[in-house]
C-alpha cells in the first residue's frame, strides 16, 4: 500500500492505516520525525523510541525502529534505564502533553535536571485524546473539556519555560503547520547531547477542536498559520499560550551543559583516580 512512499522504510506499513482520526496532527509529526531520523546522520538501528499512553503514545507502534510502548507517564524513566545500560543508543521519548506533564511531570523535571542524554518530543494537543478529551496541564484557561464542561478553571503550564527552568539544553516549539522547522528541530534535538525538548502543537479535531468550536483539522492548521509568530531565542517566560490561540514558535534554548554521564564519569574519575574506568554501558 504505502510501500512506495520513500519514508515507508521507517514505518510499520503492515499496521497501516493507523488509528488516528482524520485531521489529527500526529501523522504529520511522524512524517517530520522520520525525515529527521533519515537526515540526522545516525544509523536507524541505534535510534530507539519510547512512548507512554495516549494517542501520541501509539507513535511507537507505527515506527520501524526498536520501540517501547510503556506505562502512562513513565517513558522517561524507562528511557533513562535504556540509555544508561547502553549509552550508544539514541533514545527518543515521544509522548503527549498529559502523559509527560501530568502523571509524568516529576520524571520530566528530574531527567531535565540531570541533563539525561535523550530527546523528548511532546505532541501538545491540549487534551487527553485517547480517553475522550479530558483536561490536561496544558489546556488553556477557559477551554472546554470533558472534565471541565464549564471551561477549564486552572492555568496551564508553559512547557518551554518548564523545560528551560528544569535544565533542558535544547528547547523548541513548532506546530504541525511548521513542518520544515519541526523536522529541523527534531533533527537538532536528536543530534544534541543532553536533554532536548521539542513541543509540537497539533490539532485534535475530534475532541479539543470540536468542543472548542475550532473547526476540523484543516481549520485548526489554518489557525496555527494565522496565529503563530516565530521568535527564535525568545525568553521562555514569555511564550505561554492561552485561549486566544496565539502561539509563539521557535528555537528558544540551545546551550551547553555536561550530560548526566559526562558529569558522572568526570566526578568519579576525579575521586577514584586512575583505577576508575569510565562507565560506557554494561556491555
Amino acid at each position, binding site marked *: 500500500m504505502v510501500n512506495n512512499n520513500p519514508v515507508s522504510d521507517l514505518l510499520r506499513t503492515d499496521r497501516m492505516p493507523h488509528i488516528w482520526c482524520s485531521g489529527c496532527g500526529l501523522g504529520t509529526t511522524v512524517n517530520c520525525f522520520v525525515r529527521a531520523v533519515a537526515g540526522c546522520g545516525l544509523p536507524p538501528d*541505534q535510534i*530507539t523510541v519510547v512512548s507512554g499512553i495516549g494517542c501520541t503514545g501509539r507513535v511507537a*507502534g507505527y515506527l520501524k525502529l526498536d520501540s517501547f510502548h510503556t*506505562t502512562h507517564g513513565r517513558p522517561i524513566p*524507562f528511557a533513562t534505564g535504556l540509555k*544508561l545500560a547502553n549509552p550508544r543508543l539514541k533514545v527518543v521519548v515521544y509522548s503527549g502533553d498529559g502523559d509527560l506533564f501530568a502523571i509524568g511531570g516529576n520524571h520530566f523535571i528530574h531527567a531535565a535536571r540531570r541533563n539525561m542524554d535523550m530527546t523528548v518530543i511532546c505532541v501538545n494537543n491540549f487534551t487527553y485524546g485517547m480517553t475522550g478529551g479530558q483536561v490536561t496541564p496544558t489546556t488553556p484557561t477557559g477551554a472546554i473539556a470533558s472534565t471541565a464542561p464549564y471551561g477549564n478553571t486552572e492555568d496551564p503550564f508553559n512547557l518551554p519555560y518548564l523545560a528551560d527552568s528544569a535544565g533542558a539544553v535544547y528547547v523548541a516549539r513548532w506546530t504541525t503547520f511548521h513542518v520544515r522547522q519541526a523536522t529541523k528541530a527534531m533533527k537538532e534535538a536528536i543530534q544534541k547531547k543532553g536533554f532536548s525538548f521539542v513541543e509540537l502543537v497539533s490539532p485534535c479535531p475530534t475532541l479539543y477542536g470540536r468542543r472548542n468550536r475550532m473547526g476540523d483539522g484543516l481549520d485548526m492548521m489554518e489557525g496555527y498559520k494565522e496565529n503563530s509568530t516565530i521568535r527564535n531565542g525568545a525568553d521562555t517566560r514569555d511564550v505561554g499560550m492561552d485561549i486566544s490561540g496565539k502561539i509563539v514558535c521557535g528555537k528558544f534554548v540551545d546551550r551547553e551543559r555536561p550530560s548526566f554521564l559526562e558529569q558522572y564519569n568526570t566526578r568519579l574519575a576525579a575521586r577514584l583516580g586512575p583505577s576508575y574506568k569510565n562507565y560506557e554501558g*554494561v556491555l
Partner: protein
Amino acid sequence: MKADPKGVLTGAHFLDGDHACSEGALSAGCRFAAGYPITPSTEIVERIASRFPQVGGMFIQMEDEIASSIAIQGAVWGGAKAMTVTSGPGFSLMMEHIGFAAMLETPCVFVDVQRAGPSTGQPTLPGQADMMQARWGSHGDYEIIALCPNSPQECYDLTIRAFNLAEEYRVPVMIMMDECVGHMTEKVVIPSPEEIEITERRYTTAKLGEYRPYFTDGEMVPPIAKAGDGHRFHVTGLTHDERGYPVMSPEVQEKCVRRLVDKIRLNAERIISLEESETEGADVIVVSYGITSRVSVKAIEMARADGIKVGHLRLITAWPFPEKRIRELVGRTGAFIMPELNYGQMFFEMQRVIDGKAKSYLLPHGGGTVHKPEVIYRTIKEAALECRPQVEESAW
C-alpha cells in the same frame, strides 16, 4: 556459565542481609540498579552505589519508586541485568510496573525488605505482611516467583538464584526479605567465581527482519532481543500477538496471557525450593519462611525434646506455592502450623491446598518483633495432642 570475577568478593565475610544481597547481585552479574531510599532496604543500594563504579556497573537513585521500577526494565531491554530494592510503601508504588514486567516478560529482580505495616507502619521493625501482595499486587493475571531468605548467607545465595530464575523464565522475581534478616549480621561465604552458576540471557538467533518478540514455537519462554541489535522490534503493555503488536481480541488475550501464567504454573516443580526436616512420618508440620523459620527451628527443637513427631517445611520459594508437596504430606500428617509475621497471608494459601484434609493452625503476629519460640512450641503441643488423643498427656 560462570560468574564474572570482577563482581565476586570471594572470601568469608561478616555481613548483614542487606549487604549480602548487594554482593549477591554483583556476583549474579547485575550491573544496573535503580532505587529510592526506604528503610530497612536502603543499605542495599548504598553498598551498590559504592561497589558498582568499581566493577563497571551503574546505579542511579531515581526520583521515586515508580521511576526505579521501570528504569530497571529499560536497562534490561538495553542489555543489562537489573535490580531494584524497596520496602512496603515503595513496593506498593511498584505494583503497576511489576505487571508491566510480567506482560513484556522482562527479566528483572525486585527486593522487598518487609517491615511492619500497613502504610508507614514501623520502618525499622520486621513484618512479613507483603507476601500476598508479592503475588497478587498488580492488576490482571500473571505469575511471579518469590524467594524468602532466612539468613544473610541466603540473602547472598538467593539473590543469585533470583537473577537466574528471572532469566530462565523471563519474569520479575521478588526477593521477600524482612527487616530482621536484612539487618542481622552473620558469616557470609562468597565462593570463587568458577563455583557460581549463572544463567545467561537467551537472546534471539533470528535473522534481522525475521524476529518476532513473542513467537515461541511450542516452548514456554521466547528468546529476547535488546535495543540496538537491528531487530527493530516493538513491545507494548497492551495485549499483543507474536509480533509484539497490540491486538484487541479475546483469542489473542487468551494466547498472550495464558502463557504468562502457564510458564510458571507448569514449571512449578522445577522452580520450587523447600527445606524439609523430618516431615516424613510427622504428626505435625510447621510450615514457615523467612525470619520466622529461625524461631520455628527453636520451637521444633523444644517439641522434639518432648518426643513429639514434628517436622519443619521451610518455604525457600513462597511463590509458586508448593501445592504438590503439601498435598503429598496432607494424607499422612495430622496438622500443619504456620507462624507468620502477619494476620494470615501464606496461611490461607496453605489452608486452601490442605482442603480440609488435615488441621491447620495460624500463628499470627502483627510484626514489630518476631514470635517467641514458646508460642510456636505450645501450638505444636496442642496440635499434636489433637491429632493423637490416645497418647497420654502424662507421657510428656
